[in-house]
């Protein structure tokens, strides 16, 4: 059954192709349903393949370091065979890729479904699904790719789709700019990806994951660290880590399902996936740097989220923050925790985005939280599901977020170099997360009505609420994938173990674990409590909690923009001017010089016979002198 793996990406691709040719003719809502069907089919096939994978002989007993574990490579054709390079269009079925594929297609399908309703009435309805299907295809190539080049295909593909989707409403200049910004920033990461690929190939002579995993032991530490850091650059671009996070908040210009799918659940986790996938290469130095980057990003974005007013911006910064968590986990060596959080995050952040979309939809495209409030009454399903998501992300047990976050904090604590510091940062972030999510929930669903009288908030249609409900369920119980209570319950961990070069094992005693978990819960509750005081009871003035520094995200983005728009553009312009004035100027200058030379000599051709005779006469004397002197022996 694993042989059918190629069908997983093929279905969305087929959906894309059909929509490309016949999209406008299919019209609304058939185009949407078609795309959703393709996505759902893909999900089903993933399930089937997953089953096939489970049926494969588990080779835990064979192969060093678990490398020979369950996996299956489906080679479709040779893509770029030349010289020593063999790049195949091949798909890899292994626990990691299946985990990713499952939640990608699963969440993806739900978001497709949600979009059927959400995008209703848009003039470019079919085009939206066209992009969405293409995105799904790319994302699947990313996670299923057997080598770095195929992954890169997906990697760039999702970037492209992200660009297309962010600037979907391209008549809005902000949307267009945001799309471009996302693509270009991603490209900076891609640079890292490419150079990492080159370095790995030069060093190991292969680009396939199985090959890299098998040969990575031979890598010199320096090379491995370089590769790791390049991969971190790649991942930072795609997963919006410092300092390349800048595109993600702007990406909220895209339609909300896009934010949910691309910029919360799937694409942004690609960086995490990549680092986990190439975990055999990562060195300790690199891991420490990854952890620091992750922790810093987590705290930074959480602080930024505290003071945002746009409902989606809060979620965007929250996403960045959570991604930071995942990087922290990777940096701490807890790859499974990272993937675990990827999955749970996909559930609750997808849920939250879709919920916010429902709100926006219901309020007629209003995104400012200061113009919401008390929506609990008019949008009950949305409100309930949103609350589930809120609690999940805040880390309130037993919802899924609690489990994954707890595991990350524990891993950070155990980080050998600066563990406690990392843990502390993570803890503060957790508190802030609980606070700003509570703030959002309260502002949107609780309190009094602050929306304009003209708006008529209403609950969304079933195509939108159904995914909300399903996702809420997943977000609530997602934790069961990897419950640390009993060793056998660590399903995900066992499942993923074969792909890890150095499986992580927690060393802390149960007491420590419990204590840390307790502190985390307290922190989360503390955050919620502050929010209650500030936003439900209005005991704390809002402006004290929303300093301009945070609202403007430490002025980092604007500084970068100003630099790019100012000195950066000036430098480029200087180059272009130099090209015109000096490089081309030199060429024209030579031409002009020759002309001027001609004009300078031209008076000699004066028209006067006697001048010409002078020329002959003087020339004759010169020749005579020259030749006669040569004749003197």
């Amino acid at each position, binding site marked *: 059954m694993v042989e059918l793996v190629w069908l997983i990406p093929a279905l969305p691709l087929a959906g894309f192709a059909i929509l490309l040719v016949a999209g406008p003719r299919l019209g609304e809502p058939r185009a949407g349903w078609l795309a959703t069907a393709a996505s759902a089919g893909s999900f089903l096939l993933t399930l089937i393949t997953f089953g096939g994978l489970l049926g494969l002989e588990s080779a835990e007993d064979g192969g060093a370091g678990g490398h020979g574990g369950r996996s299956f490579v489906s080679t479709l054709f040779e893509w770029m065979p030349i010289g020593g390079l063999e790049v195949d269009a091949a798909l890899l079925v292994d626990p990691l890729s299946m985990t990713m594929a499952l939640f990608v297609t699963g969440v993806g399908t739900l978001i497709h479904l949600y979009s059927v309703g959400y995008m209703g009435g848009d003039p470019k309805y079919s085009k939206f699904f066209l992009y969405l299907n293409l995105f799904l295809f790319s994302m699947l190539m990313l996670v299923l790719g057997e080598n770095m080049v195929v992954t890169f295909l997906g990697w760039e593909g999702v970037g492209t789709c992200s660009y297309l989707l962010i600037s979907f409403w391209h008549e809005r200049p902000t949307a267009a700019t945001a799309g471009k910004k996302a693509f270009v920033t991603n*490209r900076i990461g891609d640079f890292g990806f490419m150079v990492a690929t080159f370095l790995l*190939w030069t060093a190991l002579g292969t680009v396939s994951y199985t090959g890299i995993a098998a040969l990575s032991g031979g890598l010199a530490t320096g090379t491995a660290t370089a*590769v790791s850091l390049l991969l971190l650059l790649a991942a930072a671009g795609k997963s919006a880590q410092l300092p390349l996070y800048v595109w993600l908040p702007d990406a909220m210009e895209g339609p909300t399902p896009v934010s949910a799918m691309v910029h919360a659940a799937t694409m942004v986790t690609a960086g995490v996936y990549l680092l986990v996938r190439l975990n055999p290469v990562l060195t300790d130095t690199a891991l420490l740097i990854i952890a620091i980057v992750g922790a810093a990003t987590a705290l930074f974005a959480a602080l930024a989220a505290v003071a945002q007013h746009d409902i989606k911006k809060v979620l965007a910064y929250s996403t960045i923050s959570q991604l930071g968590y995942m990087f922290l986990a990777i940096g701490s060596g807890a790859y499974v925790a990272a993937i675990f959080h990827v999955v749970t995050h996909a559930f609750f952040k997808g849920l939250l985005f879709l919920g916010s979309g429902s709100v926006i939809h219901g309020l007629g495209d209003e995104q400012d939280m200061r113009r919401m409030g008390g929506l609990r009454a008019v949008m009950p399903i949305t409100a309930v599901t949103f609350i589930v998501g809120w609690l999940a992300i805040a880390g309130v047990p037993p919802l899924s977020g609690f489990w994954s976050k707890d595991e990350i904090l524990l891993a950070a604590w155990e980080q050998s170099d600066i563990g406690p510091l990392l843990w502390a940062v993570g803890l503060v972030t957790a508190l802030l997360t609980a606070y700003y999510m509570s703030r959002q929930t309260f502002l949107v669903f609780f309190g009094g009505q602050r929306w304009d009288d003209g708006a008529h908030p209403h609950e969304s249609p079933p195509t939108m609420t159904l995914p909300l409900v399903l996702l809420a369920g997943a977000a609530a119980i997602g934790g069961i994938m990897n419950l640390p209570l009993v060793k056998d319950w660590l399903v995900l961990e066992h499942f993923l173990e074969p792909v890890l070069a150095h499986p992580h094992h927690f060393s802390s005693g149960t007491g420590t674990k419990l204590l840390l978990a307790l502190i985390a819960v307290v922190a989360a509750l503390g955050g919620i409590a502050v929010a209650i005081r500030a936003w439900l009871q209005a005991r704390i003035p809002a402006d004290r909690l929303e300093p301009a520094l945070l609202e403007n995200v430490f002025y980092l983005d604007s500084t970068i923009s100003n630099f790019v728009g100012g000195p950066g553009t000036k430098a480029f312009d200087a180059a272009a001017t130099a090209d015109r004035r000096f490089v081309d100027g030199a060429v024209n200058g030579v031409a002009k010089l020759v002309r001027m030379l001609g004009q300078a000599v031209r008076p000699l051709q004066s028209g006067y016979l006697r001048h010409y005779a002078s020329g002959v006469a003087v020339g004759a004397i010169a020749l005579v002198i020259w030749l006669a002197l040569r004749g003197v022996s």
Partner: protein
Amino acid sequence: MSAGALLAASGSGIDFPILNALIFVPAVGALVVALLPRSRPDLARPMGALFAGIGGALALALAWQFDTAAAADAESVGEGFQFISQQSWIPDLGISWHVGVDGISLWLVVLTSVIVPIVLAGVDPHHDPKPYTAWMLLLQAGSVGAFVALDLFLFFVMFEVVLVPMYLLIAGWGYDGRRYAATKFFIYTMAGSALLLVAIIATAVLGSPDSGITFDLVTLAEGQGLATNAARLCFVAFAIAFLVKVPAVPLHTWLPDAHTEAPTAGSVVLAAVLLKLGTYGLLRFGLYLFPEASDWAAPVLVTVGVVGVIWGAITAAMQRDLKRLVAYSSVAHMGFIVLGIFAFTAEAIGGGVIQMVNHGISTGALFLLVGMLYERRRTRQIDELAGIQSAAPVYAGVFTLIMLSSIGVPGLNGFVGEFLILIGSFETRRWWTVVAATGVILAALYLLWAYQRVFHGPPAAADRQTADLRKGELLTLAPFVIAAVALGVYPKPLLNATEPAADTLLEHLVEHSDFELPDPGDPVIVDAGDGADAHDGDDH
């Protein structure tokens, strides 16, 4: 005469001189078109497209008939040539009509022969169709000739002779600055090849075997009769001529003018075919003829290539004229190819060849698209356009696809070449490659920025009325789009044919110079020093 008949003919053992036909069919077509009655100007383009199309069909048949297995068996570059046709031409000087293709030239021949009929059929010159068509056909004949020539004299003849139709196309059917641009184009490239001629003669005079002077490429290259210093000097002259044609920074400034002022079809052919003469020349006449000198000069040339990548991208970003922007993007793309050629690995050289084809497809299509926009709006100024995507979604879609191909998004053709060049170059030219890879970022920057300004945003009234693509135009673009996708997904046939040629060329290089082929995965390369340096390159 159909391709099928020809296939049958060649299959049945009749030695059909297909390469000569590829040159002479368009040439004869030019003559026929020129002799058409004046009263029927409408016949010119169909006739021209017919002849050019026969050439295209022949070229496809050529690609079909190309024996990859035989190419793989070749033990030297000279043995790798197929469809060889050799006739004595000027025996006194050892000059012969010697043509043949290998995996390097094959695809350029196909590209040339296919693109010309497409643009002939698809682009309306608006006036004087007869001479226009005739010049286009001559352009095709000359370009194919240059790609298949295996004689230095013949190559130079073809290399130079294509200037004339191109010059007249720019001068006669171009835009406002056409006189300046055409002259600059002609003079600049002629200046480059002035020294080339001296070098060719010097190569033949000094490098010929004792049996007598010859201009035969294979004889001269396999013989390696030149002294080291003479070879280096000659190589420098060759390289300058080809770098002008490429064009490499800082010898590139003729290109933006020529491209901008040329008529659409001229720009397409210029980008797709003529620029390739430079890179092809570097491969065929630089590496093959002067392996030692190539190795000697490689650091400089690689630098030139990388500078081209970066400089082309930066300057492209600041252009106000859309066509000029595309032209500068050509400079960047061609820089990649130069890098690839002088990286001396099979991957990079193969990538270079692929990139030549790909650049022809994507930049050619971009010029077509810009031309179509100009037809509608009578302007190419980025400032004067906005929101075209709202008015012309199909047009915008095709543009997007081609743009992505040009940026090098995987799955489309542009990626394959760029990636292979970079990965191949990384083995031997690590730091240059790292710098060149930043060009990938810049490519996205300038193209997307331009795209945003032209296609996105709220359209003005004039923009709203921009008509979408017509059927004919779509048909013209279709081959480009199909090729862009097909070559991005399945470039293997191209690579299979090219690889043996690249391999034998590298063997030739190794044999005649100090250069040693790198071995990917060889632990020797992996040392801590490199890694530590790589570490410094990142900002964290």
